[in-house]
């Protein structure tokens, strides 16, 4: 039982790592979502740019996240951009997942009923106003389960950031186990905390779905 006691004594470190992971996830998810929405709209409105967006998405789909992270991490200084590991990690997570979010929105749009759009057009809504007032909320509603899954993917990808010195949850667990020689307790608790985070996201998605179903 000694291992768990030691871990409890240093629980502050683990919690700090958990907070960093949560922070990274929230910031990246929000930014990636916004960027994904933007690219999705770009694709729809400007067919000329569409191949570029398609190319970006295909590129991200064919790249392991860790390799993309390394590329971002080591390329930035060469281009004169000085980002510390934390921000470089968020940049990588944002760009990488924005590609997937764009696809998710496109898929949701394919399922989107035409009637509200036509009604909105008939009432004189168009362009950004149409998008913001009529389309956006139901679109997110349709995409919500996939968005939730992608957020879980972001949580899992955030663990790769340990390799570029970001002090998130896996890093915290690794530091404690390397210092106090308690690998089992350390990593099991980290694993359970990741599970907890994912369960929270899934619960959030379920609640939002239920609430939007109630509103219909």
């Amino acid at each position, binding site marked *: *039982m000694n*291992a*768990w006691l030691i871990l409890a004594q240093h629980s502050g470190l683990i919690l700090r790592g958990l907070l960093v992971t949560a922070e990274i996830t929230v910031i990246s998810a929000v930014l990636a979502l916004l960027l994904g929405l933007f690219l999705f709209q770009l694709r729809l409105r400007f067919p000329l740019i569409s191949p570029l967006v398609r190319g970006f998405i295909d590129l991200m789909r064919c790249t392991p996240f860790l390799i993309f992270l390394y590329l971002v991490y*080591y390329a930035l*200084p*060469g281009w004169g951009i*000085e980002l*510390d*590991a934390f921000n470089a990690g968020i940049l990588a997570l944002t760009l990488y997942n924005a590609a997937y979010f764009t696809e998710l929105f496109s898929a949701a749009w394919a399922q989107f009923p035409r009637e509200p759009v036509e009604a909105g057009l008939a009432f004189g809504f168009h362009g950004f106003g149409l998008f913001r007032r009529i389309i956006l909320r139901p679109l997110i509603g349709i995409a919500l*389960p*996939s968005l*939730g*899954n992608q957020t879980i993917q972001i949580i899992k990808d955030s663990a790769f950031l*340990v*390799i*570029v*010195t970001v*002090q998130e949850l896996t*890093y915290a667990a*690794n*530091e404690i*186990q*390397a*210092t106090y*020689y*308690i*690998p*089992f*307790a350390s990593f*099991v608790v980290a694993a359970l905390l990741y599970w907890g985070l994912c369960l929270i996201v*899934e619960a959030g*998605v*379920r609640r939002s779905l239920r609430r939007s179903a109630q509103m219909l």
Partner: protein
Amino acid sequence: MTNCPDPRTPRRKAFLLAGLFACMSALAVSHAHAASLAEIQKKGVINVASEDDFQPFEFVKDGQPTGYDVELFNAMSKSFGFKVHHEMIPWTGILPGVTTGKYDIAVTAVLVTPERLQSLGFTSPVAESVDYYVKRKSDDRIKSVADLNGLTLGVEAGSAMLKLLPQLDEMLKKTGGKLGKVVEYQDYPSAYQDLATKRIDYVVNTYLNLHDLVTKRPGVFTLGQPVSKPIYIAWATAKDNTSLLTFMDEKIAAAKKDGTMAALQKKWFGKTFDDLPSKPSAD
């Protein structure tokens, strides 16, 4: 339909979790113990771990382990009478691996600190060193230890160099400064890379490592000054593995006597340590 699993009733899930946790707690208590010398001789093989990129002590070249520790150990293993199973793994797995019994001995540069003496067994020291810092050659801001005030430094995660940083902090306080941001790396090569690309300002490591680095890359890096007191480097085993420790100490003493150790020190460090004690200590 989403990919969410069936929402079992929350109570059942909690019960399953509690059961799982109880099993794991029970499992975590029992752990494999390190093999004593007799057990190793019976098995016919000793499990060894070394860090996979810590020049000049241990690293991989053309797919083969090499370096001071590796060559010294290989020279000694000729007279072992049992085989060697040698794994090159990242640093953060080595010491925990020794305490949990996965490895019988860590043939890797382990700095002997008071805390480590509490939880690990150490062989006779095989080298001695002092922590230094290394900076970019082009960086004119840093001319002495006092100039390190507030600058960002890189160090290996879970290492004694990290633990010895308070000594550097003391030195800086004396000149009215303090330690800057500490970035922890999974291995030193990553730290050196970030130093070269200006993400960090200096890296702290033992003299022997940094001397090796600066010799290989004189145009990029410059060695600084000491930032810690001298410290011994030895190989680590599980704390109570006295039979294996005695055995290894004999082999180390023999290597000292017949000049193997001095020759390898000369080869890898450029100098010899003639006054290494036979017992590891941390003062």
